[in-house]
């Protein structure tokens, strides 16, 4: 007997083992083959490298239809990142030294906006907060459950700082793995599922740790 019959991977019928007796069972087998093949195709495409330019990395696969979240100030990521080419870690400064990336403190915003674009309505709103000595209450968009330990610093270390051929200027491409193309958004919008399968597939593809206790707490 060949393995062909069992796994449908070898050349079907090469050993002559698969000789359907009835029309119906032939259709059934074909359908089954199509299903299994389709499944593997789907899986392999899910694991395939989509060719993102980050060296030594396989970006995670998965899509998510996120909600539009109304923030206290409609912060334009696109202007800051895409137009002004500000590095993500300039504002999300804790990302490289803590598990959380952090929302920039209001003083950081004011560092520039004391002088820049002070006439824009969004900046006026910001200045209001600053003068009231009250930080804006941002809404959380990207979140993992409380039983999950996720640390930004080690992911940045792996994909940016310790990654040969990768420069810190391009950090936004690594951020995009999980946060999507934030530079095309105003306020952040969740486009990746950030669930266990999403994490696990990436860990497998990039040979990350696979111990449950690495992430579950």
């Amino acid at each position: 007997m060949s393995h062909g019959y069992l796994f449908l991977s070898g050349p079907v019928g090469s050993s002559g083992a698969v000789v359907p007796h009835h029309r119906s069972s032939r259709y059934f087998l074909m359908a089954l083959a199509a299903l299994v093949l389709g499944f593997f195709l789907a899986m392999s495409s899910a694991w395939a490298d989509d060719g993102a330019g980050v060296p030594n990395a396989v970006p995670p696969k998965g899509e998510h239809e996120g909600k539009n979240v109304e923030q206290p100030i409609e912060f334009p990521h696109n202007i800051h990142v895409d137009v002004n080419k500000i590095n993500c870690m300039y504002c999300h400064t804790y990302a490289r030294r803590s598990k959380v990336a952090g929302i920039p403190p209001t003083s950081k915003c004011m560092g520039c906006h004391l002088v820049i674009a002070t006439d824009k309505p969004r900046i006026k709103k910001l200045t209001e907060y600053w003068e009231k000595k009250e930080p804006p209450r941002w809404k959380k968009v990207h979140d993992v459950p409380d039983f999950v330990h996720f640390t930004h610093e080690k992911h940045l270390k792996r994909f940016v700082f310790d990654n040969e051929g990768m420069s810190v200027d391009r950090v936004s491409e690594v951020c995009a793995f999980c946060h999507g193309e934030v530079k095309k958004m105003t306020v952040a919008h969740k486009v990746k599922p950030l669930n266990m399968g999403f994490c696990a597939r990436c860990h497998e593809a990039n040979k990350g740790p696979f111990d449950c206790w690495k992430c579950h707490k």
Partner: protein
Amino acid sequence: MSGNDINRRDFLKILGWSGVGVAVAGCDRPTTVTLEEGKEEVVAYLQPEEYVIPGVGVWFASTCQQCPAGCGVHGRVREGRVLKMEGNPDSPINKGKLCQMGQAGVQGHYNPDRLKKPMLRKGGALAEVSWEEALAALEQKVGPASGLAGDRFAWFTGTVSGHQSVLLSAHLAAMGSKNHFIHETINNAVARAVNQDMLGEAMPRYDLPAAKMVLSFGADLVGAGTSPVHFSGEYAKFRTGATRGVLVQVEPKMTLTGGSADLWVAIRPGTEGVLALGIANQVLLGDEIKVAGLPENIRTLIAAYDVKKVASITGVTGDRIMRIAELLKQRSPSLVVAGASVEGHTHGYQSAAAIMVLNIVLGNVGKTILPSGSSAFPQMEAKTGGTRDLLALADAADKKALDVVFFHGANPVYTAPAALGLTDKLKNIPFKVVFAVHPDETAMSADLVLPILSAHEDWGTHMGAYQPEQKSISIQQPLMERLYPDTKGFGDLLLALLKARQVKEYESFADYYGYLKNAFAALPASVKGDAVSDEDFWGKSLQKGVLNVGTVAGALNPKMVEISFPEFKSDAQDYYLVPSARLGLWDGRHANLPWLQEAPDQISKVVWTSWVEMHPATAAKLGVKEGDFVKVSSAQGAVEAQVYVYKGIHPQVIAVPMGQGHEEYGRYAKGRGVNPLKILAPVTDAKTGELALYGTRVTVAQSGRREVLVKLMGSETQLGRKMVGTVTASVFDRTEGAKNVT
């Protein structure tokens, strides 16, 4: 975990600014939070501080205020919340370690039943008022305009030390009053008196590691004692030294220290002094040289207590007395210490003195009992007390000698025996002000309650009641922003009280923080070490948490005192009541901390309630078993609790632990168990006037009710399974002993 290299300068200011972000960030609960976008809020600091990184815990040094020992602690702070206490390795008292009470300090801070607003008695009931109203009431009664001065005013506190003590004394002086009552139920006041009289120093230093044997008469060194964490560390050294130390514990009811003894001896309560003399008698047998060195009266006294007589009085068998004496002779130097069970009798002073005689006979003074010396700042050293001041307060109140009393750090309404009638007598004091964190019994019977900051929110300096080789000041700094806006720091209030009386001297200090900073700047250069500026010194001090202030050497001058014992009669049907202290609930001040309620008593393993300990023989005589309710009655009252039976207690003793039986004090303490202090007889030690805590006689009767005693222990024997293996000390000395294993 080691992020202690952080200098926290303007901590309060920062927190004050970014307070909004603090409460929200990082408090997770599972299943109740959502992952859905936009449902949770995330708030950043308005202005970042370089050492505050969200998601990273930072450790700040402070001082534990759970008992008078004054251990140095590190508090873990994350996103502005204090999460966990650890010992401060720089503290000479606890050397990086902490006991369960210190661990539970955060629960006192976050306690849901804390006092949040000032309360003023209006028409018989306490009502919440604003600070303005509260301070106005205070001003009216004690302000300069009230005309109050002199001894009609008093402070009633627990142990106080540091700048708090300095300000308190200053306030008393400003009021012109000498009345500072200091009350601690768990104390060693009698032993201190004996030490003062016989050695010239109230609290000498015990060098446990130097001792080859410790003979403890009811001294709970590692438990509810002077400095539990310190002595636990010393105990470990004592047990692992070149010669493993031997611990013999003689007491009527097993304490935590007794649980670790090599030999535990049950003794008839109150006869410890006799046993000490009996042992001295055995030690001196045939030792003419030593005998010759003793004064005549002591020699005759010791000679009078031969083994046979001592055995019949104490109930300790003769061969055991001889064995202890034998061990003491072999193992020199040794250390003999007296504890609560010795002190708590009408002749407590005599017994403690007899025990000190044994120390002198054994030549321990100067070898294991060392002078503790003094520091350059005597005004900051701990002022501790006992129960005498409790009686004094009752007496003064009874005589209507007091108009205004300020209470802080003590809960006399709870700890006073019912026989003192304190609750009624306090009604004679027209205005009672309580500075408290929690709604204890005293606060609830006060006329004005001022909610103060918890130990984790307030500034302060402290000196431990027991100072090891290095005298040190331990700094207390806030570990987080105040939880409740309507609470004030005790130091700030003291300063405000002083400003009301002596504007000139104190007006330059904006608050207690400023006062402390100023006081630190004024410290002599020898203390400041290599600090380049006052600001640098302040920063370094806060970072380290402990300030070594140097020791002025002292000396011990042993001298004898007259010792005489009452006649010990063979006892009748009634029992001695032992109101035992336990490391955990302490004198009841920690009954509102759920962790400590749920942490089982170390000996009986009972949780959350009170129990009555008795010997199997006693239980058999009474016809009761574990779980039966019994009524323990003295002439002053009765308590009812469940029986716990074991062999670590003298058959003539009934032990009921202190700590429970609160009538107030929040949800975790209120209405739970019984308070044995309430049924104590109002008898005192003849010499010192301290309450004789162990001097009450009780009868015990079955009450017929029976429930399973809630304890976290199934079988109390190992059933032959090697759960705890045991080897003899000779084996230990052979295999490890002096060898430094790691």
